[in-house]
């Protein structure tokens, strides 16, 4: 059996899934400020009356990292080294970053000798004495994490590795992020992603390191995994090293959970939580990906991410006395103490619907003193907001199957045009946790082929087989493996006409 957990901004959800993929039980609680208390409570409730030996896997997804990034909290002070020699110096690292973040005195960046040409020749060598000098400035500025980005490091990573060894010798046990392990070709976007990874390591340590402790405290012997942006999962140690790959798994988990619960593989998913509503398209049970450079909180990277529109509207959204009645602020995880329904003093969206039967959780105080006019105006505004957002995400004007999930699902108006509301499935309030529980295992192959000896079909097949083998070795069920990405990159101007082929596959985890 396995447990899926999703730690959101407002709620922490958990589900217990048996080996035939049935949902045995679910549990929902408020997210605690320290994350771990809520996760522990969740697991405790779920394994009540269950033999602990039967829990093989615990898979956790969290929005904690992105929240820290948005709130500029728990970020590591980061030293940046670009190995470039005389190249690329017109645009410094962090050139296009939000000013307010740059001004936080979080970065120390340097150009240094190094960099490769497209064919692997050195633009200039890495100079040990120069890197050592740079380390001195890092030390005097109390840098906590390092990002190294070499020109064409994806062609050959040896310069980045060499520089990281020098830095490790000088600075001891400091986390170092190397660009060739983070992103693909595109110097500035890869550099941004590498810096982002580096500055999130502190937050990742705080979030993930204690999970293993919880498992021990609960005397469980389960393997623990963290969900990633693309619907796959990684080990805790990898998640701490590469937090950027787990930065945005929430929307993916909720959409995959919605797909599993509703049986809808293609359609729209509207996830209404406590703080925000996320809307995305499902294509073959995976979220539609945005094909453009992805912005994380104003920072441009070349990652591929679920294309999700998020609007500030949820059960905890505050209601004003004057128009616009629906504010953009939420009481977040304090809903059970601050909102009128729970005896507090702040009118929220939940209070607007408190008297209705759609709400599927118990509300202590059903008699809410909000003016009737405010209620009807607020409902109208909510309908307008959701309608506009749905129209933006729909890819055609045809009526589209739409699944509503999340703890705030009761907010969804039932008369929005152009959608066919799919009956809210059971467990919809824990769709994210279900998505976590069904995170997949990925397999990868990246290899250079000389096109002279093999046909294109043979090359692609060879790459595919290697990626499948890799996925099976990580625990994937081979009958469920599918290819999700194939990339062929010709190595330009080489007489041999060599190409690099990258194949990525994913599969469901093999049930024991």
């Amino acid at each position, binding site marked *: 059996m396995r447990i899926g957990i999703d730690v959101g901004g407002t709620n922490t959800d958990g589900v217990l899934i048996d080996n035939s993929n049935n949902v045995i039980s679910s549990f929902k609680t408020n997210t605690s400020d320290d994350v771990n208390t809520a996760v522990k409570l969740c697991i405790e409730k779920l394994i009540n009356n269950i033999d602990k030996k039967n829990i093989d896997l615990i898979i956790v997804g969290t929005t904690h990292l992105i929240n820290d990034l948005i709130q500029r909290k728990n970020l590591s002070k980061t030293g940046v080294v670009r190995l470039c*020699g*005389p*190249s*690329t*110096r*017109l*645009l410094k690292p962090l050139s296009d970053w939000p000013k307010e973040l740059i001004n936080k005195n979080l970065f120390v960046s340097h150009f240094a000798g190094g*960099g490769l*040409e*497209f064919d692997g*020749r050195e*633009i200039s060598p890495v100079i040990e004495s120069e890197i050592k000098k740079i380390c001195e400035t890092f030390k005097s500025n109390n840098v906590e994490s390092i990002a190294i980005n070499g*020109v*064409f490091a*994806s062609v050959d990573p040896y310069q980045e590795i060499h520089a990281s060894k020098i830095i490790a010798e000088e600075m001891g046990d400091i986390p170092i992020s190397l660009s060739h392990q983070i992103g693909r*070709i*595109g*110097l*500035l976007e890869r550099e941004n992603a590498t810096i982002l990874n580096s500055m999130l390591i502190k937050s990742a340590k705080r979030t993930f390191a204690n999970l293993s402790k919880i498992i021990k405290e609960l005397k469980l012997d389960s393997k623990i995994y963290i969900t990633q942006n693309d619907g796959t999962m990684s080990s805790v140690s990898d998640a701490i090293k590469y937090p950027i790959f787990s930065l945005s798994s929430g929307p993916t988990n909720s959409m995959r959970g919605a797909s599993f619960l509703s049986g809808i593989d293609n359609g729209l998913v509207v996830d209404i939580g406590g703080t925000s509503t996320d809307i995305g398209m499902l294509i073959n049970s995976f979220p539609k*990906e*945005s*094909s*453009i450079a992805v912005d994380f909180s104003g920072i441009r990277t070349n990652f591929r991410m679920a*294309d999700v529109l998020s609007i500030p509207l949820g059960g905890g959204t505050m209601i004003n006395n004057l128009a616009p009645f629906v504010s953009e602020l939420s009481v977040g995880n304090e809903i059970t103490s601050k909102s009128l329904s729970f005896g507090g003093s702040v009118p929220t969206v939940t209070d607007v619907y408190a008297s209705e039967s759609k709400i599927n959780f118990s509300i202590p105080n059903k008699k809410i003193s909000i003016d009737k006019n405010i209620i009807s105006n607020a409902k109208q505004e909510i309908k307008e907001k959701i309608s506009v957002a749905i129209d*933006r995400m729909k*890819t*055609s004007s045809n009526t589209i199957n739409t699944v509503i999930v999340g703890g705030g699902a009761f907010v969804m108006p039932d008369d929005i045009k152009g959608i066919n509301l799919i009956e809210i499935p059971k467990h919809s309030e824990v769709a994210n946790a279900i998505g976590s529980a069904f995170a997949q295992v990925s397999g990868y192959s990246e290899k250079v082929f000389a*096109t002279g000896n093999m046909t*294109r079909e043979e090359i692609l097949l060879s790459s595919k087989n290697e990626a499948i083998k890799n996925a099976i070795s990580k625990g994937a069920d081979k009958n469920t493996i599918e290819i999700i*990405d*194939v*990339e*062929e990159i*010709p*190595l*330009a*101007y*080489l007489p041999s*006409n060599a*190409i690099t082929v990258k194949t990525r596959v994913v599969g469901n985890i093999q049930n024991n």
Partner: protein
Amino acid sequence: MVICLGGIGAPTVGVEKVRGAESARALTELENYLGKKATAVISGEIGGSNSLEPIIAAGENNIPVIDGDGMGRAFPEIHMKTFFIYGVSWTPAVVCDEKGNSALFPNAISAHWLEKMARAVTIQMGCAAVFATAPMNGLQVQDTAIHGTLTLAKNVGKAVQDSQKNKTNPVDSILKAYPGKLLFDGKITDLTRSTTDGFARGHVLIEGSEQFKNNTLKIEFQNENLIAYINDKIVCMVPDLICIIDSETGDPITTELLRYGFRVSVLGFPAPDNLCTDKALKVVGPKGFGYNFDYEYLLNMPRK
């Protein structure tokens, strides 16, 4: 005197080895050889980053940039610039890299030879360099350049930015700023690329969606998109412009950035008049790219 500036090399290299202020050095080196100062600079090719190279040099040297270029789009080879098609001399020319190296070409028996020599040098320089060429007088610029393209590029860019900001359909915005035709909407399902003689050749297959469902569009390219077919029937051909853009954002997707799974729209734009003369079509029409058929205008809309 007006000097033409642009990048030379592989765009894939350009996104990694991001270019700097080399264009200012290329301009100065060509001026020094000729013994006189340029009064203005012009882009050799309005497509992509080549529209910006002269702006960097003009900024450094405090001289104007001419609103126009030598292609009205992008083409893969130097001899395809209208300056040379209509008789401007391609030499002397200078190639500069970011490391401080430069190469001067006082003579070349054809623009094609200049290309071959300049490219050989550029590969050694690491495949991203800057090229200064075609010193000409004002009258030559007026007669041979494609006019107004810097403004057009700016307007198209603004249309895309505005549509992103206002969440409107980028295709509509672009076609308003630059009259053309929506050829296709769909998803990239196959991509073949190979690099032969220094050019990225290949084709991309796009499976149709919405009104184009159950149709397949194929584009053959040599660095730039050349011929578009829907279900094997040609719908647009060079020198008319075939553009692939991201359906959601309107951002351009060049042949280097094409990837499996992208959702794209394909647009066709009529070529300007001075790319459609017999003289120009010999160089930049289908036959100039090795096809055995003549240019035909297929966009089914008025040219202007």
